[in-house]
């Protein structure tokens, strides 16, 4: 099946600053693609060009086979945008907001009414549908913001940092909604600077920094970029040095570093080896009081690729 979104060599400059520098990626139907990067990395600028809000200085965006530019309207029918800001009208009710944007998307009549009610149910605002949205809590506004993007059942849903400034409960609800959407076959482009969100939601992740896509792939593919090694740290008393000699002989253990009351093992697959490691150590009379497994994450990948943390 053809890709829903094809971004090819996208460039955008603001004066001397190149905010987006040759970014390319694709999203297949039903796939959730994450753009992971710190603030100022170029995520929102990229999304603005993908959604047709901003013209590119170079490169192309193709949505459902149609070229997207600020002046085109047809490709925009396939896109649902959820901006980072709460892009809702505070003096309109939840239902009125949905109905307005539904009309602008071309829905009308009974189709519009049905979709509005469905989305109100989906985002949990059916019982507050008549209230003006300025009376909603922050989480409810966020949900309405997302609901508007979903209303016309877009082929491509773009979510620009939808959980920024959201309480943990609402954040959890938003993440669950996004997971459900990808299950329904909708392609999702999700930007975030939260590593855990990208890991949880995204089938593939593009790591972006300084306007450039540094790497992309599945979580495991990205982690393999940095060697893909885990660590097992044993804390205890007894003959740790003697145990270390034996631990080095276990297949999959690449390195053992010992301290006075601890040993750190560099291994290929920590979960698979931890039981054998603990057994070997205790058989040498080591009394363990702490076992800690560390696996590399996207933060480690980002650090490896850019030399800085995601929240720097």
């Amino acid at each position, binding site marked *: 099946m053809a890709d829903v979104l094809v971004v090819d060599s996208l460039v955008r400059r603001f004066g001397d600053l190149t905010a987006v520098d040759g970014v390319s990626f694709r999203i297949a139907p039903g796939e959730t693609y994450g753009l992971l990067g710190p603030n100022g990395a170029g995520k929102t600028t990229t999304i603005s060009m993908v959604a047709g*809000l901003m013209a590119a200085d170079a490169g192309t965006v193709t949505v459902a086979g149609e070229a997207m530019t600020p002046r085109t309207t047809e490709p925009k029918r396939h896109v649902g945008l959820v901006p980072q800001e*709460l892009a809702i*009208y505070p003096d309109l009710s939840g239902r009125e907001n949905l109905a307005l944007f539904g009309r602008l*998307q071309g829905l009308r009549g009974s189709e519009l009414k049905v979709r509005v009610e469905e989305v109100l149910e989906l985002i949990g605002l059916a019982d507050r549908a008549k209230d003006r949205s300025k009376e909603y809590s922050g989480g409810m506004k966020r949900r309405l913001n997302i609901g508007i993007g979903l209303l016309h059942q877009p082929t491509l849903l773009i979510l620009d940092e939808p959980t920024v400034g959201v309480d943990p409960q609402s954040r959890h609800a938003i993440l669950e909604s996004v997971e459900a959407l990808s299950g329904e076959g909708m392609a999702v482009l999700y930007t975030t600077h939260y590593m855990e969100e990208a890991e949880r939601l995204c089938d593939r992740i593009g790591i972006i920094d300084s306007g450039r896509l540094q790497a992309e792939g599945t979580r495991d593919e990205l982690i393999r970029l940095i060697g893909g090694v885990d660590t097992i740290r044993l804390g205890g008393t007894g003959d740790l040095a003697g145990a270390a000699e034996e631990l080095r002989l276990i297949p999959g253990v690449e390195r053992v570093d010992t301290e006075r009351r601890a040993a750190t093992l560099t291994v290929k697959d920590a979960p698979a080896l931890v039981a054998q490691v603990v057994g070997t150590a205790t058989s040498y009379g080591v009394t363990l009081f702490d076992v800690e497994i560390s696996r590399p994450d996207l933060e480690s990948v980002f650090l490896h690729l850019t030399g800085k943390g995601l929240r720097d």
Partner: protein
Amino acid sequence: MRQLLALTAADLLQRVRDKTVVIFALVVPMALMTVFNLVFSATDGLDLAPVTVAISAPAGDDMAQVLTSVVSDLDGTGELDVTVHEVDEAAGRKQVEDGDAAIALLVPTGFGQAAQQGEAVTVEAVRGDEAGIEADIVLSVVDGVLGQFASGAVTVRAALAEGVAPTELAALVEQATSGGPAYDLRQGRAADEQLDSGAALVAGQAGLFLLFTVSFGVTGLLVDRESGTLSRLRSMPIPAWLIIASKALVSFVLGVVATGVLLTLGSYLFDADFGSLPAVAVLVVCATAAGTSVMFLIVRVARSSEQAGIATSIVALVLGIGGGAFFPVSSTGPFTWVLDLNPVAALLRGLGTTSGGGGIADIGVPVAIMLGFGAVMLAVSRLVPDHGVLS
């Protein structure tokens, strides 16, 4: 078209729910009209205080007696209550110093004879510290009478220069001073371009606040940009011009409705008559179009909704005051015509024409000014660098 109407209707619904527009477009101007009406009504009903005038007139001088009689006859004229004390010069000065008289008129000996022979003569008016507008009225009347006497003196000098016999001079002076003016100035009312005070008050405030009212539409683009809704609108399958057109339509509808309501309410409450309804409607539509066009310039220049609000206030006050929203503005000089190109001035001028009985055919000039102003504003706004709202 459906999308344009949907967007416009939603925006109008929000403006109605957000009381700000109602306050700015209707409540504040109505309150100002009421306040100004009370102030100006008080001025119209000015109460004049009784005034005492001390006159020192030489005995046997007929012309001096004429002067005294004229001042005495002011008593009971209109609202004036005039008491004349006939005294000698010293007593006249003392009465003014003591506050017993507001003014003393000291007519010198030989006044009448000097006047008849065309010689220079001075009547001294001593004005007391407490003298008010009533004393000024008396002085104005006396000044007028002396002016007539002066015309007699001129006649005498002219007659002597031409060799008229001295025996005929008295008759000539009599004719010059009592024959009445050769030219008569009668107070009238212009057939157009003139509003009475009540109508001018209503029209002025309506014109001024029209500029505030229309700002709620177009400059809403800046609010939408700040809230993120503009991005969302631009991500919709609608052309960009439709978003701008909807905001202009909101401005236009708000402006027409608010100005129509203000003129209607003002007519009832302040007894203003603006004449032909179709002609007034044309003027309101054109003024709203002109006002809306200014907002396109402001939305180009301003970087935020706050800046737009400040710019709107400045433009509205400049155009409002320059257009005569608070008081009639008259000016002289080479740039007088600039004031005439103000849409508020044009609206007032047009309403003056309609209130004087003019119809649509008579308001061509103000209509042309307002539409021309709008066209120029739109053209200029296209030349000003955009900060991203209209592009």
